[in-house]
């Protein structure tokens, strides 16, 4: 039988694109679809997806669960589990429309807005994020045929098997408004045709789209799994997301230092820094050596605070950034920005290991 993500490791290549309005002004998914569609050649029709932030303002206090179900049986089981652990504010199908190139088969695509019922545990006090995180991991690990592919607040992932432009049309993303969009076109080296395997990968408010195949995968995976994570998909994107979640949410590391961990400076370069910085960087490289992401990658990381784009330290994947007005753009190819942004104020290629950070400054409008 053909194994799907999780049953084996499937390296893939890709295209990525991201847009943020730093003032929080929301805009439809049309632009991001146009951008990712331009890089059609970089994917092979076996995966496409989007993450959108700010799309559910009326439910912004609730975790928005997007779930794929293979059948009604498992849906009932998962809904029992959800009802036991969460207040369900609202539940329903995610609206889709028929698109010729998208073969949905019999997949059920559901959305729930939920609020955790936290039980006081004797052993430890956990916050609602951790509680929700554990529930998501549990569903994905234990409920065969169900997969939570989005679990953040006021954000959502939309993904599936197909070219990204077709997936965007399938989910009718032109009808959603977000202040930040990221997109992914996938080129996997197989075809299990499982929708959960498409990207972005998300966990709570994190979303990651990624291009490249990292060489440090199993060192990274075995590291994060010491901290309660379970890499069910065996994809690079999943482990990258968990690394960020671990460092930021659990270890409370500032973002700059997180970036210096996953794309660590060379020892030679550290030697030229001041004593204080040397001390810090040597500490990071010593303690978190298993969190170094090695091999080619360009990623766009989304969270409520904004967007971070990062290349590996010797820049093995191309990535271009641009700014115009309140907006920041990042994409695998410059033309994918130009097609949606006439005359940007500034266009540049970030250096390897040097992040583009675009933070949300204003209120979401």
């Amino acid at each position, binding site marked *: 039988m053909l194994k799907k993500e999780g049953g084996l490791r499937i390296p893939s290549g890709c295209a990525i694109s991201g847009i943020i309005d730093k003032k929080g002004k929301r805009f439809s998914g049309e632009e991001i679809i146009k951008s990712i569609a331009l890089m059609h050649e970089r994917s092979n029709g076996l995966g496409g997806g989007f993450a959108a932030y700010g799309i559910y303002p009326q439910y912004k206090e609730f975790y928005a669960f997007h779930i794929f179900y293979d059948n009604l049986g498992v849906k009932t089981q998962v809904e029992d589990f959800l009802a036991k652990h969460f207040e369900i504010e609202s539940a329903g199908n995610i609206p889709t429309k028929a698109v010729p190139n998208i073969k949905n088969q019999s997949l059920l695509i559901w959305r729930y807005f939920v609020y955790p019922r936290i039980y006081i545990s004797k052993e430890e006090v956990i916050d609602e994020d951790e509680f929700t995180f554990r529930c998501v991991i549990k569903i994905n690990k234990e409920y065969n045929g169900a997969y939570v592919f989005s679990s953040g607040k006021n954000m959502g992932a939309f993904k599936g098997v197909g070219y990204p432009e077709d997936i965007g049309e399938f989910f009718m993303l032109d009808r959603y408004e977000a202040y930040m969009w990221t997109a992914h076109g996938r080129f996997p080296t197989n075809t299990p045709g499982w929708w959960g395997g498409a990207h972005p990968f998300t966990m709570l408010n994190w979303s990651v789209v990624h291009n490249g195949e990292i060489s440090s995968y199993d060192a990274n995976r075995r590291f994060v799994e010491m901290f309660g994570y379970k890499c069910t998909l065996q994809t690079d994107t999943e482990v990258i997301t968990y690394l960020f979640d671990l460092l930021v949410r659990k270890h409370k590391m500032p973002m700059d230092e997180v970036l210096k961990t996953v794309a660590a400076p060379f020892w030679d370069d550290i030697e030229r820094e001041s004593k204080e910085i040397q001390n810090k960087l040597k500490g990071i490289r010593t303690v978190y050596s298993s969190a170094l992401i090695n091999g080619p990658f360009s990623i766009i990381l989304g969270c409520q605070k904004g967007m971070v784009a990062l290349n590996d330290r*010797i*820049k093995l994947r191309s990535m271009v950034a641009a700014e115009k007005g309140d907006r920041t753009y990042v994409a695998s*190819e*410059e033309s994918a920005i*130009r097609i949606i942004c006439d005359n940007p104020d500034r266009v540049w*290629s970030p250096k390897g290991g040097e992040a583009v950070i675009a933070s949300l400054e204003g209120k979401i409008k």
Partner: protein
Amino acid sequence: MKKVKVLDIYYRELNDFIDNEIKTDKNIMLTNVFGQRYIGRGLSRNVRIKIQGTPGNDMAVYMDGAEIEVFGNVQDAVGNIMNSGRIIVHGGCGDTLGYAMRGGEIYIEGNVGYRAGIHMKEYKKMKPLIVVGGKAGDFLGEYMAGGAIILLALNLAKDEEIVGRFCGTGIHGGNIYINGKVDKYKFGKEIEKVSLDEKDIVFLKKHIDLYSKFFKKDLSHLKMNFFSKYMAVNKNPYANMYCAN
């Protein structure tokens, strides 16, 4: 000159169209170019293409004599394995410019990304040349085996680095000329700084003049004594690396 609005024409059709067009008119102007790949692939002498927009990856791949002028930035792997011809870019350039090119000239008005001039090589009269108006990313001239790269480093801000790390690693032929001072740690161990001779100065002046002409810039202020020349320490850098077993 035929003018064509490209927009969303697929690259295959576009390149076929160019093949057809040059049978009658060797001058083509493409406007609204958005990421179409392989423009100018393998094209030979006397063909001149002007491009407005952002041509896609592998522009001028295997090009053999044609001339392409781009009004805008170019993406990755421009001039890949180019044999001869000329590329003029009124803008900047992505990564891996001129990979393994063995002839022809590339003039970039602005900055170039990582790995520009990687593995460019020369053969007899064929000597590839890359002239960069701005700065360059890491691995400039990595594995370089011939030809020349000129880095003019014009209009850089004070904190901007002229060239990234690992410049000239594995170089075993050719010259890199850099306008300005670069710290030694930026270079690989296979490359060293040498003094400019008369021939270098004539060579530099010639191409600086051409740069001025192409981009309509007055570069009379550039001083030759600010330029440094870098070349391979050894034509066979790894001769003592191995031990027959």
